[in-house]
């Protein structure tokens, strides 16, 4: 048996002096870094090259990286748990960031809301949250885009392309943004042919590769011939659907390299524009608005280039609808309209423009969507 190692007083003093020195030095660094340069932190819930949600944000971060006088730190695969608080704290204390973009929906409450009052000099910008002045700290902001309009345009092209008059949607969870996308996709298609129906399958999770593939196969088995989705990484849905011979509409990012012949178009985020604008505002000493929203007109979202299978009639209606939307204030949900249980959601003459905050608490699927929110 060895005798337990004892620490001599001299080595104890040496070590603790060293640690203290490092702490002092480490404490100084961020201060100097903070003074000279704007440092921005991006946090993603999944891998940043997933052909989906996280990739769209990482493309925005890459654009910020190109700007002069800015340094960028990124971390991926950060769960929506207390882990994200640790990541934010370490970005603040070790990398000296002064502007944070925690991009996943679940980061907002409680994680950002807990940390923000501790660091009043920093700015927390969250994607998808619903910031309100009387409930949330003033150094927190929320931003999002009207991507439902993109799914509406997807639907227009899908409506022209579908022969079976059945289109399909692989969805993760029945939250308002997903429901708005499903409804918009169907209504876009119905603007072409009011007999079209949209079959939706919920997988229950943001990323479940095998279940997404099963859902896509089940849709095609039922005669669906155009498929889109709202999951974190659309790669599996696109490849499976195209492999079964169905057409696909993309979501989050441009997935046309995955299915060049079958890809019709796609609703993409354009975070590069949003993020560079926000960084410019901070650099010029301005204040970012706490509640930022935008759509096609503001450049928050964009459409993938139309694929080779899109017909000329479809192209024309796509272009016409897009220019209507670009004028701003376009309403997809307008009366008279019922949900798929027969309840009236908009009386005649009533309409919800894209900017209407009521749409951000949507809890129904419109008539023509085959599916249920629970």
């Amino acid at each position, binding site marked *: 048996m060895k005798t337990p190692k004892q620490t001599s007083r001299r080595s104890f003093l040496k070590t603790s002096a060293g640690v203290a020195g490092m702490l002092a030095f480490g404490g100084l660094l961020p201060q100097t870094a903070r003074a000279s340069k704007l440092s921005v932190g991006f946090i993603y819930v*999944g*891998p940043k*090259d*997933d*052909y989906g949600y996280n990739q769209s944000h990482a493309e925005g971060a890459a654009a910020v990286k190109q700007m002069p006088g800015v340094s960028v730190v990124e971390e991926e*695969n950060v769960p929506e748990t207390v882990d994200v608080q640790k990541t934010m704290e370490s970005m603040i204390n070790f990398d000296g960031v002064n502007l944070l973009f925690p991009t996943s929906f679940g980061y907002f409450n409680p994680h950002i809301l807990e940390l923000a009052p501790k660091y009043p000099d920093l700015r927390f910008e969250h994607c998808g949250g619903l910031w309100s002045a009387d409930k949330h700290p003033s150094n927190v902001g929320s931003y999002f885009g009207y991507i439902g309009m993109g799914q509406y345009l997807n639907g227009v092209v899908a409506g022209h392309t579908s*022969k*079976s008059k059945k289109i399909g949607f692989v969805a993760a969870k029945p939250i308002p943004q997903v429901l708005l996308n499903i409804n918009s996709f169907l209504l876009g298609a119905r603007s072409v042919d009011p007999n079209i129906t949209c*079959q*939706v*399958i*919920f*997988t*229950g*999770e943001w*990323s*479940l*590769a*095998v*279940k*997404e*593939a*099963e*859902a896509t*196969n*089940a*849709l*095609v*088995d*039922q*005669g669906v*011939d155009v498929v889109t989705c709202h999951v974190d*990484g659309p*790669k*599996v849905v696109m*490849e*499976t659907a195209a*492999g*079964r*011979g*169905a057409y696909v509409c993309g979501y989050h990012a441009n997935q046309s*390299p*995955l299915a060049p012949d079958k890809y019709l178009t796609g609703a993409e985020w354009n975070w590069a524009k949003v993020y560079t604008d926000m960084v410019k505002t901070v650099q010029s000493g301005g204040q970012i608005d706490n509640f930022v929203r935008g759509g096609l007109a503001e450049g928050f979202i964009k459409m993938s280039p139309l694929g080779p299978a899109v017909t000329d009639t479809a192209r024309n209606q796509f272009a016409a609808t897009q220019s209507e939307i670009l004028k701003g204030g376009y309403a997809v949900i307008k009366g008279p309209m019922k949900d798929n249980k027969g309840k009236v959601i908009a009386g005649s003459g009533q309409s919800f423009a894209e900017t209407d905050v009521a749409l951000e608490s949507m809890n129904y699927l419109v008539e023509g969507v*085959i*599916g*249920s929110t*629970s």
Partner: protein
Amino acid sequence: MSTTVDIGMWGVPLAILGGAIRVSTPFLFVSLGEVLTERSGRINLGLEGTLVFGAMAGYAAAYESSSPWIGVLGAALAGTLFGLLHGWICKFPRVNDIAIGIALMLLGMGLAFFFGKPYIQPVAPDLPSIPLGAWSDIPQVQAALNVNALFLIGIVIALLMTWMFRSSRLGLIIRVAGDSTDAARAMGLKPDRIRLLSTAAGGALAGIAGAYLSLYYPGSWNEGISSGQGLMAVALVIFARWNPLYCFWAALLFGGAGALGPALQSVGITQGYYLFYAAPYVLTLGVLIATSSRNQTLAGAPGALSITR
């Protein structure tokens, strides 16, 4: 696109059949690998990590060589290495095989994420499938019966392993090592060597399961590709009472039940889909209760396992 026929409610049994064939293969391979390992007297809980690393290694090898079969080989090789590592560490006295398994699971996943970064975007060639449904005019039937060669190989391995454990010299040697370390030593066998090789072969099978995921269904590499299938498969071994043939049926059951949720939604039965997604687990519980015995716990468990010892 060949126009699909309206099959209505027939879509549900068809989806269960198709799902059983498509989804079961990884369960089958991992559980066969675990049966082999546990029959020799070790538990390797790390097969989830081996599966994920195999998926990455297989995808990378297939992409670099443009041949999916080289990918399968690469995945098997990577799995073998993980198995050898597990077997080698567990040979030392007072090492707990369950703890090492968990450590290797985390290591495998971490390494796969680290080395797999550059392979998320590229598209690797897929494994070919055999169109066993070509006799039918209905495209949905054809699609459901598109069977991958690995599925058939899995059935052959299950049959071979059943025969091996029952009536071959090699099978008896493995079983002796698994049932009693002392008896094996008395017979002049080297239990550690037998377990090392069994764990390595089990790892190879788990690696192939990963290659099936990334090269055939769903057929791409990303970090969420497995979502715990390796862990489920290890649990299936107890469900299958350490019998390779039962592993096959258990894997089919799991695959088919997993297809139930999407299939029911696709024919318009949309209420309560979270409940249908729990179907495989409810089924497992049901079967375990139905087959439980008052007299014997864990019937068929090898005697030298650290949980039965």
